[in-house]
Every structure is written in structure tokens, then in C-alpha cells.
């Protein structure tokens, strides 16, 4: 670049107010874009964090969620006996039959009540998940006791240890809080399988069966074996795929975010054009002087285009900084699969930030190209004559 960069940088600095205002407009578009990407990324993290790579979820054939599925108890006996199913230290099959339903609790965001997944499972089921107790204790068989996930305890004021919540046929006492790390399980309420089944009059069937395979090959074999077995009338999906499909819950918000970001970008683009046109007008005499000194039209164009891109780059950084604090925000979104709320944390990562920055640069280039061309095309003499 023939014309020194200092020329552009200092001109941006001299018109501080204008530069800041234009930059802020672009920054907001970038922030919204990064936030939308962070939302989707956060959801994906929670869902992929939930799944165990070797676990298989068995549902009724045709069902695409645990909530809409029924698996008879006799099927469980067949499933847990399948070859390829891993065993725990005591020699027990790592197979868990589970009952899934929904409870409605008033939350901080939704005083009218929000759906929370209730899961009835056995000790084996607990063993098959990587959760640990952070407060209180696990529920006892035969008791109307439940344990809530960490996110539930945080977002639902009623869900404290010692409190009672109502679902199914009556009240249940909360005796513990569990932590599943980065996983959707933090948004669930767990109780004893038999106890919960009874409450929903489902003594001879469960919603789903969770199996762990010994290795990836066995996982694949088990999946096919289950699906090919006509008598079972079941379908098997890897836990990984099951949770992955739920990331689409964020789609409406993601779409809204992108929509807003793009529209704001268009508005900011016009504003950038305005700012740059004003700069070109104000510095007409300088342009004429530079041309007189021998700088070509091309170098003038490049210089002003660079200035626009520098401005938007600054805005891009600002926008990324605005979006970063979202990483501290936990919120919830409803999954249509589980019909209940999943808590997750925004995850504005490197991809989101880089995308936002690139977006800003492109915007700066697009907004600056016409004014830069106008600058380059100015006739030397008329430019020198402008006040």
C-alpha cells in the first residue's frame, strides 16, 4: 500500500465520534451474529456432553423420542441378555429400563410453569451416566423421593432439598442434587423406576431401554440386531445421534438471530457508506493533493477502502467483546423431543468470534467500496477546489 496506513488510522482517530458511532452499529450486528452462533454451539455442547459413545437407546419402533415410546418389560429381559452388552464390575449387564415423563414446575423465567423431564431409573441407570452427587443423597427404593439435576435446582425455586414437588399421583420429596457436567441430565428429575412407573400406571412397560456396548463394533452389531428383530418391534439409536438430533430445538432462535444480524448489517452498511462518503467529501482537497504528488487512482481507492475495512475491523473486535460475556449466561430452551426444558450455557467460541470478525470485514469492504471509488474517480482540479 503506497499511501501510509497511518493516514487512515489517524483520520479515524481524528473523527472519534463518527468513527465510534459507525463502529458501534456494526459491532451490534456482529455481537448478535456471534451470540446466535454461541447459542447453537452451547446447545450442541450440552447435548454431545450428555451422550456416552458406546450407549444405545432402545425405543418402540417408529418413536423418535423417549416420551412417545413404549417398551414392554419382557423386551427388557431380551435386550439385556444380548451379546455385546457390557457388564459392570459385579457382572451385571449395563442395561437400564427407564420411564420418562414430564412435570410442570414454576421457574424463574416462567412463573406459569415449565416442563421438566422426570426419569424413573434403577441404580444401574445411574451407574451408566457420569453424574455425581453434589448435595444430599440418592433416592431410596420404595420411597417417594427424587433427585434433581443441578440446573433444575438453580432455575426452579421450588426444587430445593427438603421441598416437595407434585407430579404423577402426588408429592415427592427432593433429597439430593446431582451434577452431570456439561449435559442435558442437569435439567432432569430422577426417581426410582418402579416408584415412578406405578405413579403413571405403567407397571408392565417402560419408555426406553439404555444399553452399553463393549466396543464400537458391538454397538453397531447390537443396533442392527435389535432393529432386525421383528418380535421386539423396537428401534435402536445411539445416544450420540439421539441427542444430536435435539440441537434443532435452537433452530428458531438461531434463525431469528441471523435474521436480525443481517438486517442490522444492511442498516450499518448504509451508515458506513454515509460516513465514508462524508470523509471523501471532507478530504477532497487531500485527495487532489495526493493525486498531484503522483498517487494513482488505484492507490486512492485502496486507501479509502482500507480505511473502511479498518473501521469495521475495529467494530468487529468490539462486537466480539460485547458477545463474550454471554459465555457466563445460562439459559434454558425447550426441546420438542423431550417436551421439556434443557438448561445450557452460551458458548461463544473461536468459530463464533472469527465468523463475527469476518462478517465485519466483509461489511466494511462492501460499505466502503462505492465511496472509495468516488474518491478515486475525483478529478484532480475539482477536488483541489473543494473547500
Amino acid at each position, binding site marked *: 500500500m503506497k499511501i501510509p496506513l497511518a493516514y487512515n488510522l489517524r*483520520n479515524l482517530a481524528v473523527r472519534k465520534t463518527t468513527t465510534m458511532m459507525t463502529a458501534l452499529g456494526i459491532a451490534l450486528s456482529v455481537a448478535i451474529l456471534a451470540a446466535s452462533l454461541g447459542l447453537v454451539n452451547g446447545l450442541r455442547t450440552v447435548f454431545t456432553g450428555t451422550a456416552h459413545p458406546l450407549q444405545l437407546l432402545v425405543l418402540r419402533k417408529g418413536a423418535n423420542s423417549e416420551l412417545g415410546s413404549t417398551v414392554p418389560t419382557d423386551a427388557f429381559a431380551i435386550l439385556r441378555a444380548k451379546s455385546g452388552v457390557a457388564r459392570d464390575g459385579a457382572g451385571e449387564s449395563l442395561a437400564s429400563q427407564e420411564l420418562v415423563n414430564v412435570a410442570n414446575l414454576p421457574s424463574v423465567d416462567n412463573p406459569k410453569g415449565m416442563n421438566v423431564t422426570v426419569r424413573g431409573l434403577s441404580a444401574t441407570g445411574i451407574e451408566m451416566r457420569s453424574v455425581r452427587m453434589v448435595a444430599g443423597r440418592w433416592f431410596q427404593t420404595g420411597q417417594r423421593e427424587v433427585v434433581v439435576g443441578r440446573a433444575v435446582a438453580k432455575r426452579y425455586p421450588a426444587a430445593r432439598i427438603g421441598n416437595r414437588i407434585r407430579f404423577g399421583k402426588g408429592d415427592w420429596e427432593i433429597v439430593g442434587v446431582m451434577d452431570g457436567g456439561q449435559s442435558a441430565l442437569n435439567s432432569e428429575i430422577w426417581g426410582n423406576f418402579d416408584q415412578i412407573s406405578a405413579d403413571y400406571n405403567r407397571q408392565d412397560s417402560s419408555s426406553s431401554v439404555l444399553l452399553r456396548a463393549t466396543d464400537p463394533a458391538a454397538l453397531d452389531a447390537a443396533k442392527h440386531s435389535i432393529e432386525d428383530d421383528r418380535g421386539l418391534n423396537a428401534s435402536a439409536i445411539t445416544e450420540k445421534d439421539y441427542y444430536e438430533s435435539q440441537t434443532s430445538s435452537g433452530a428458531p432462535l438461531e434463525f431469528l438471530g441471523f435474521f436480525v444480524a443481517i438486517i442490522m448489517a444492511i442498516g450499518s452498511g448504509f451508515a458506513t457508506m454515509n460516513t465514508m462518503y462524508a470523509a471523501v467529501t471532507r478530504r477532497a482537497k487531500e485527495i487532489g493533493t*495526493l*493525486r498531484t*504528488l*503522483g*498517487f*494513482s487512482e488505484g492507490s486512492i481507492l485502496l486507501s479509502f477502502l482500507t480505511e473502511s475495512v479498518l473501521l469495521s475491523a475495529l467494530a468487529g473486535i468490539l462486537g466480539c467483546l460485547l458477545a463474550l460475556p454471554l459465555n457466563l449466561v445460562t439459559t434454558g430452551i425447550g426441546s420438542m423431543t423431550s417436551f421439556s426444558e434443557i438448561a445450557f450455557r452460551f458458548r461463544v467460541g473461536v468459530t463464533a468470534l472469527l465468523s463475527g470478525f469476518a462478517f465485519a470485514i466483509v461489511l466494511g469492504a462492501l460499505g466502503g467500496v462505492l465511496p472509495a471509488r468516488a474518491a478515486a474517480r475525483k478529478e*484532480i*482540479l475539482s477536488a483541489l477546489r473543494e473547500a
Partner: protein
Amino acid sequence: MMDVVIQTKKLSKEYVRDENRVTALKNVDFQVPRGDFLALMGPSGSGKSTLLHLIAAMDRPSSGEVLVLGQDLRSLSGRELARWRNAHTGFIFQSFNLIPVLTALENVMLPLKLTDLSTKQQSEHATTALQLVGLEDRLQHFPRQLSGGQEQRVAIARAIVTDPDFILADEPTGNLDAASANDVLMLLAALNQEHGKTVVMVTHDPHAAHFARTIRYLEKGALLSEGEVQQDWVAAAIALPFHSRLVGGSEVPAR
């Protein structure tokens, strides 16, 4: 034969302004020899600035030729003209035209950006130029921190930093007080006499013209023949304390 630096043949320039066809220059034929200090004088609208701009390749003629250092400027493309300007000319404006956001040194370095010199070399050349005009202690100052006279001297430094073949000045003292104007004019005269630079200066100020070797007059787009002088100008010249030298001779007033 004297080495001719600038030569024009039947040079004409017309333009259209607000539906009126204006003739700025009409068939101008003249020559500027190497080492001359020429003052172009005339009332406003006489075309003197237009002639200067055509010589400086800042504008294209409507008809006629401009030959500078043997090069027919009409045959050069826009890009080539720009490069040519950078290499061969140094332009001084009436309102200095320094870049406000650049320091004095950076302003003088600007023309060198288009050369192959390294940044260090550019800086050295620019410093030398500024020393020549007596502003070595103002290198890091911004234009707003300089007086009008100092600004114009920076502009002169900028004009000579590429060691151009000739310097073109458009009313260089128009925005200056008498003392600063004097400094600037003496600088130009020194550049011409001690360093052999060819200078073409447009001015309406007879006092400024006094520093030149040759004076030519323009009137309504036509160049008056040598020796021919517009009547009003003689009267004005005589009225001044310093009487202007019309042809030849050189006498730089002592500083």
C-alpha cells in the same frame, strides 16, 4: 541553443461550466529554458493557473501540445502521468495542502512512497529537505502546530524531496503575511540560483514576481508576447516600493 524544459504549441483549454463554454487558454505557444525562474502573471480568469496545471499534467489540453523534457504529455495514460508527475515535478499550492494527520516529516516523505527507496532512506531524504528549508527542528510537528509560513516551507520541502526537474508554484504567497512571503520567495529564488532548479510560479503579486528572472503575462487566455505588458500592471509595478525586474538579470536581495 538553450536547453528547453517546457514547450507548448498552440495549447488551448476549454471547458463547459453551467452551460457556458469558457475558453481558459487560447493557442498558447511558449518555451521555458532550463534554469529559468518564470513568473506567470495576469488578472483572475486570465488562464495562468490553467496553464500551470497543464504543464504539471494535472489536466489535459483541449487541443495543442505540451512537451516537457521532450515528452509529449498527451501520449501518456493517466497512470503514466501520475508517475511522471511524481518523478519530474514538485507542486506548491496556495493553501499549502499539507495532510493534516501527518507530521511535517511524514508529509515530506509522501512523494518518496512512490519510489523504491526504503523507509529509512525516505526519512533521510525528507530530513535533508526539511533542513534545507530551515525546519529541521519541526520534523514531528503537525501542520496545525505550524505557522502559515512554516507550512508553506514544509510544502516546498515536499516539492523538492524527489529532486524534480522543475518546481511549479500556484500563488505560493497568496495566504501568507509579508514576512513569511518573503522567506518563501527567497527560498524559491535560492533553489533556482544555487541549486539550478527551474521554477514556474503563478502570481498576481508584483512583489513576488520581482524574485523571478522572467515574467510573462496572460490576458483572457492569451499569452502576451515577451516584453508586452498590460498597461495596468506597469502602473501597479511602479507604484510598489520595490520595482519589478522585467527581463533577465538576477539579484537576490540579501537575507
